[in-house]
């Protein structure tokens, strides 16, 4: 039993993708732009005879129709399940016999197709990778089965307070008079929306968004650029076109504040989630906000929330904050779970911590410590192929400069006390946040509370 639950480990992994830290000896990213517009980014790492790659395309869940949330995720499952050339069983046998690990999924902006393979099986691996991308099978029976399983899984997911909270948070932050903003639903979809999805919806998304322009292939491992191109170029030369909607073609959601939503669940704990919009990936205040979040609750045991809510008061096992930087502002989230009758106390402590930051109670020394942790931990955040492809895909997809990893340390270092205080004024006003609670007998407790 580690002190961090699997959920929190997931969170931390997530943070790797949201935030990066670099150091002094970063291997350079090699770049190659292909004729069809696809960008290939490579970092060589010859220590282990393996290669990992991740293709990211502007085909995430934000392109799902509002009543068909989950379309992108189902498409990702279909692409890796079988192809036009191999039915499901033959495909599974082919991949397993060469130990090719092929996976796919969707987050809000991007759909990814990823592969980890032994160096010796790379030619077969790249053939399989491109086949799943370019030759979808659209098998009706397999679609029916994948959809049914996804619906059952969505119902099972309703047992998890975190998923209930995340659904409610999305609606709260992204619902407006004109409807639900494309970031408002979970990429996995919900019980209600998955039922509406048809095979034609997957085909349409595939046709309009899974295009090479604006897509990025990130590769890390025991391979050079010429070796990679020799295998990859012929395999994907038929892939052409631009997506109908480009990555940055998205409006920001309107600001929502001061709302509370309560979801009843027969649990012993209440999950409290405080939410508001955070910065977008390319916002000018990204770095100050990032350093601020690290100080607030992004840095695990060193953070103020962990210190006040867990270490001083023993109210929770974990309390974390993070924001999801997307093409447009995404959610900024503070989340904790505590015995139901302590939830309001814990929320009050969180608000006090925010208020204190909002009022500018940050010393030079504290800023220095947070920055030292961020810049010092760079190397370990990039010490595996899996981490490297995640970082490179993010850098390429959001069109950040390729020396991003090299200058990242400088960007963190250059955040001044004034910068972080401005960021705190922008993001830490407790009145601008909203609350989602998932737990037992919420309204009853609310009424009896003083």
């Amino acid at each position: 039993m580690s002190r961090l639950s699997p959920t929190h480990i997931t969170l931390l992994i997530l943070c790797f993708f949201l935030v990066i830290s670099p150091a002094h000896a970063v291997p350079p990213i090699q770049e190659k732009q292909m004729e069809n517009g696809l960008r290939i980014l490579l970092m060589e790492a010859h220590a282990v005879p393996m290669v990992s790659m991740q293709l990211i395309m502007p085909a995430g869940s934000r392109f799902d129709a509002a009543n068909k949330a989950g379309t992108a995720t189902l498409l990702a499952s279909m692409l890796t399940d079988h192809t036009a050339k191999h039915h499901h069983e033959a495909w599974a046998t082919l991949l397993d016999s060469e130990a090719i690990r092929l996976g796919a999924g969707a987050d809000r902006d991007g759909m990814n197709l990823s592969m980890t393979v032994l160096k010796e099986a790379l030619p077969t691996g790249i053939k399989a990778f491109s086949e799943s991308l370019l030759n979808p099978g659209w098998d009706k029976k397999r679609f029916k089965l994948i959809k049914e399983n996804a619906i059952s899984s969505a119902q099972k997911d309703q047992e998890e307070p975190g998923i209930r909270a995340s659904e409610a948070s999305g609606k709260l932050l992204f619902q407006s008079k004109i409807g639900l903003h494309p970031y408002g639903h979970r990429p996995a979809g919900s019980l209600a929306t998955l039922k509406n999805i048809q095979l034609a919806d997957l085909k349409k998304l595939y046709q309009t968004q899974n295009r090479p322009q604006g897509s990025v292939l990130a590769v890390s491992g025991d391979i050079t650029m010429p070796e990679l191109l020799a295998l990859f170029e012929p395999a994907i030369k038929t892939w052409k076109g631009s997506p109908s909607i480009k990555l940055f073609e998205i409006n920001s959601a309107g600001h929502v504040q001061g709302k509370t939503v309560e979801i009843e669940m027969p649990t012993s704990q209440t999950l409290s989630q405080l939410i508001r919009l955070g910065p977008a990936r390319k916002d000018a205040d990204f770095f100050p906000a990032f350093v601020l979040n690290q100080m607030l609750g992004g840095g695990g045991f060193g953070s103020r929330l962990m210190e006040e809510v867990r270490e001083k008061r023993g109210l929770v096992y974990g309390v974390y904050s993070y924001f999801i930087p997307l093409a447009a502002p995404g959610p900024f989230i503070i989340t904790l779970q505590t015995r139901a009758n302590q939830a309001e106390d814990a929320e009050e402590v969180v608000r006090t911590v925010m208020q204190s930051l909002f009022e500018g109670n940050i010393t030079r020394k504290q800023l220095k410590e947070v920055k030292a942790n961020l810049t010092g931990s760079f190397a370990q955040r990039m010490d595996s192929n899996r981490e490297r492809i995640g970082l490179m895909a993010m850098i390429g997809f959001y069109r950040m400069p390729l020396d991003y990893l090299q200058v990242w340390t400088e960007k963190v270092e250059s955040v001044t006390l004034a910068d972080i205080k401005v960021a705190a004024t922008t993001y830490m006003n407790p009145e601008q946040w909203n609350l989602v609670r998932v737990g037992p007998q919420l309204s009853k407790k609310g009424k009896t509370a003083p």
Partner: protein
Amino acid sequence: MHLFQLLIAGLLAMFLSVSGANAADLKQAEFRNGVKLIVEEDHSAPVAMVQVWLKVGGRDELPGKTGLAHVFEHMMFKGSKQLAPGEYSKQISAMGGSDNAFTSHDYTAYFETVPASKVNKVLQMEAERFANLKLRDKDFQKEIKVIMEERRMRTEDDPNSHMFEELSAAALRLHPYRNPVIGWMQDLKRLTIEDVRAFYKKHYVPGSVTVVVVGDVDFKEVKQTVKRTFGRMKVRAVPERFNPTEPAPFGPKRIDVSLPAQLPLFAVTLPVPVWNPGSNDREAAAIAMATQLLAGGRSAKMTHELVDNKRVAFSAAAGYDPFGMGLDLWYAYGALGPEQTPEKFETAFWKMMQKMGKVPPLEKELAAAKRQMIASEVFARDSLYLRAKHIGILETVGIGAKHQDEWLTAIRNVTAADVQNVFREWIRFDRSTTGLLLPEQTPEQTPKQAPEQAPKPTPEKKS
């Protein structure tokens, strides 16, 4: 290991991945007081993983004191002679590192990922807190509350995890895997700082320590540091591990667990041998291979047969951990959709297991399973954490890191007949305990949403 941990790990990695270098690459030293050091140098990035392993875990707790090993792990962060509570993690953080710890039935381990230049400093800090913990009651009173929240979050409010906890307890009579590592809530409420102090005195002795370092370090330098730190601690008696022999099952058992939930979960567990190098290599590797065939890769037989063909579950898997002490609770489960009944899953599952005992796997299936298990070893080398952890586990459960390579040899040698035999000898209904999570109706669940979500409780067949 705790069943639910297994479940999670199983979902991620099928638990069959074998990390690790060639044993020849491991450099070892042992000091006069019994402290062991194992180093694997890897100079590909300027980072290192430091892990301190203790031969103590949930299995070593006395009756009524379950959860104590894990509580103790938390108390290691609550201050020593030189460091105030919480200060340890702050210092690691300030040097650009991260730290954490984990406890299982078989071991407790503390780990830090740091820039390679900080390894010596970290080892000094580890040795200092190991020797000089404060163990103040006021810190304990806060921390035990944190742990109760941890239990609520992980177990009480998670119906699947809760069912697996009950299932482990029902499956075993003597073996300590019957108790949850986090402890029963009833025990957690009664633990005192005196229990924690007694545990410290008894179990945190030099002869129980293995230091594992993987990364951009020099063995000689690390050896000097460990010699000057852990190596200087006074020799103390090493308590014997609690490892009773579990009586063989005399027939199938069954429990129904009714909890607020959306959908049923059907699970089966049964005791199987763990790996004992040189004595049961063939048997343990065959169980691992059988589990890989059932639940590993895209052509996993359970998915193919139970999810795709028979449609009796929306997901199904199995798991085996060969690196435990005494036995492993092998498990399999099916997550059932609203139209899928436990009866149908159970029938199909056991029919499948019987067939596996009658018909050996095809040679090409066996070859693919072996290729995947060997590839997992290579992929795991990509993570310093997994490499160090595998070394630590082998050493702490008594297998010995020096036998690391023999496991893959054993895997390579498994035959189709060996796999077949697993289903004749071990994975059998009469040795099994079945656990069924039955959703309790809650006010928010409307029949419209899920017409068949409350299946009738299965009558107890035999118990």
